[in-house]
């Protein structure tokens, strides 16, 4: 059900991918320990488009379609950025505009600005072993909060779940020659939300407009080919809501459902040679199995550009082979 949440996660993944690629590529290109992140004062900004849709979904473990929804789709237009506070600490943000729609039935779609996401990404450890192998460890802290008063209790067409989230993520990466593998684990702490109803049933009745939102854990593994010019990777995602409850047969979904899924996808990134700092990203993803979510197919694409401030001009030589001359 949580297509927009899922879409958002992939957007997050996409922007991290972008940033991550920048950093690791830089690291690879550099021998200096202080040049492993996006260079200080560099600012990478881009626009992303994402499209996610599903026909089938799971009510608890029961997989079904719904002719009164047809295909439920989410389109997301995001602005995202990554700024090098220091070479080891990057600041990232994203703001999506979301549109939801069902192709069948009478339900009205929704649209609006969704959640502002902010991340701090820190690389405390980066090491080269031998001539061809580099590994690095990252810690990411994220914060997201709704920028508009959209209703979370309008699933499956809600723009999002409307919770304010804190995210902690640990990433490990290893690059050997032109190949790499990355694994990450994430914990998302969700705030309670308020909905426009003052009573609701989950597995018991609640006489309040406040909803206890379960936290979530997720893990990701990605691997592929990574050079200065190209990145091509496959990725696998696992996400598990800790707690929450199942949608019963033919019931409406609810923000505090127990939403789980595993998915697989691919991403590609290309850095232009003739326009240093310009890159294109694209990717696709498919939910293999889920619980209380739609079986989405997701595509996204975007364009990013790195601005170098006056200060960072001096670090051009080590900041980005990515945006190489």
């Amino acid at each position: 059900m949580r297509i927009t949440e899922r879409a958002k996660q992939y957007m997050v993944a996409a922007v991290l991918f972008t940033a991550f690629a920048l950093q690791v590529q830089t690291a690879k290109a550099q021998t200096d320990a202080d040049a492993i992140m996006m260079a200080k004062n560099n600012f990478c900004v881009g626009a992303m488009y994402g499209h996610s849709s599903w026909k089938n979904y799971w009510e608890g473990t029961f997989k079904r379609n719904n002719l009164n929804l047809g295909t439920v789709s989410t389109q997301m237009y995001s602005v995202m950025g990554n700024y090098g506070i220091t070479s080891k600490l990057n600041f990232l943000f994203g703001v999506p505009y979301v549109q939801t729609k069902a192709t069948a039935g009478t339900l009205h779609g929704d649209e609006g600005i969704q959640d502002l996401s902010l991340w701090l990404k820190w690389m405390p450890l980066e090491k080269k072993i031998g001539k061809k192998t580099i590994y690095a460890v990252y810690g990411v802290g994220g914060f997201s909060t709704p920028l508009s008063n959209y209703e979370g209790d309008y699933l499956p067409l809600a723009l999002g779940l409307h919770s304010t989230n804190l995210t902690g993520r640990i990433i490990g990466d290893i690059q050997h020659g032109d190949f790499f593998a990355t694994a990450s684990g994430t914990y998302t702490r969700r705030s309670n939300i308020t909905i426009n109803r003052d009573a609701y049933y989950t597995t018991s009745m609640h006489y309040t407009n406040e909803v206890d939102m379960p936290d979530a854990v997720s893990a990701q593994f990605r691997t592929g080919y990574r050079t200065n010019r190209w990145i091509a990777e496959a990725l696998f995602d696992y996400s598990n809501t800790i707690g929450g409850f199942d949608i019963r047969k033919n019931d409406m979904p609810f923000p505090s459902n127990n939403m789980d899924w595993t998915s697989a996808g691919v991403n590609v990134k290309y850095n232009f040679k003739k326009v240093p700092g310009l890159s294109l990203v694209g990717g696709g993803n498919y939910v293999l199995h889920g619980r209380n979510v739609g079986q989405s197919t997701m595509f996204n694409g975007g364009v990013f550009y790195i601005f170098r401030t006056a200060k960072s001009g001096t670090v051009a030589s080590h900041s980005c082979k990515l945006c190489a001359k």
Partner: protein
Amino acid sequence: MKKIFFSLLTATTIALVYLGCSKDIHGRTDDLPALNPVNIDIDAGLWKLVLLSRVDSFAVAAPAATNLPGYLGELNEVKGLQANMTDDEKAKIRYWSAGAVLRWNEIMRELVAKHNLPPYQNEDGTYPIPSGANPFAYPQFPFSNPPYAARAYGYVSAAQYDALVACWYYKKFYNRAAPYKIDSTIGANAIAVKTDLPSYPSEQAVLAGVTAEMMKMLFPTEIAYINAKVDELQTATMASGACVRSDWTAGEALGRQIASVFAARGRADNTSKAVGSQIQWDSLATATAAKGEIPWHSLETPARPPMLPFFGNVRPFLFDSLTVVNVLRPGPPPSTGSDEMKKQTDEVYGYTSNPTADNLHIIQFWSDGVGTFTPPGHWNAIAAEDFVKENFSEVRWARNFALLNMAEMDAAIVCWNTKYYYFNPRPSQMNPAIKTLTGVPNFPSYISGHSTFSGAAATILGHIIPERADAYMSMANEAARSRLVGGLHYNASDCVVGLTVGKNVGNYAVQRALTDGAE
């Protein structure tokens, strides 16, 4: 950089602590104080009954004298419960002490919400129908949709009322004081609010017995759940010092007997014929088409049979079935081919194509759709939270809920009778470009159920708590409007007429209230 990192870490920690602390949720009625009635209504045994022919139709044997060994043994049982009480037991006493009518009403609303699920279709696109004869098979019985729920609230509340009137009659007649009055040790340890109300038979026991017995008819899959609540209430009431076992036993038996009268009525009130058959469903459409009108059709895929199309023939509580048809059912909506209907359809389209934040808020607040306690349940919740502030006695709580829920049940009957008599299409059927901002119910448009329920509820509640009358009516208007701006209903025909019909039904409840001896 270290400085930056340190300050960010601090900020994150503070944010985490903040988020961590704010997750506990308290319901509005979780921590209510114990019910301390301003008036124990000692003469409520004289109030007008709903169904019972006499207040003493069911005999309650005289209680044993309080100085005999048998009663002293019962006091010791209460003392035993009061010794070594766990926190959980104390919490249960506090929970029930807010009022047993209130808590049983909340449990009812919970069961309605739990069972308010439309059945999932069969492989061949037909729909299975819940069966009271086989309630555990999918789809479980009942599907507590709005008319079903309105009737369930109506029966339970009316039965609770008659049962408590009988209870009060015997209380005054036998006049056995509560254990907390008789025994000083129990009095000292009592958690119950001490009043002069006699304890034989126990009002909590009467409520437990009557409600549990009604649930066998209304929510047969929940008998075990209800019985656990009965046991919980019994232990809590005895441990609180409010009654001894013989108070309880006599009360529970009385409640169950009185329920049997209501259950017998329920089995013969035409509800069993409310679903109808394919031939009957088809004939509704044919008859409407023969009048030159566009007949309603289901907007679901696969098309779902109309919801309880013959619920309009159910026997009401506050008036007879002829009154439904001859007095309360409104005249026809504008013809589906008329300019007026087109104008009203365009008005709906105008609202749904530009939903405002305020409109979305009221649409969602009043949606009361699948998986909720339905609009009558919403009005029960509104009433309950106001009744709490009034410190009514249990019997007055029951009387007020009976007035409300008989009005809601009868509003459902009149509304459903109207819906299927005219079989009028929804706005989204007249203009498929109308996308609704909450789910479209699977029954005809004219007249709006929300409006009818709300008009009836606001009218009787405004009589019970006159200082809130204007507030209730503005809530009813908002509920009605939410269905217009949500794209579910036409304004002038469905919402406006629905409110009027609802108020007319509500006035029957007001008339009863004026003559039931409680005012």
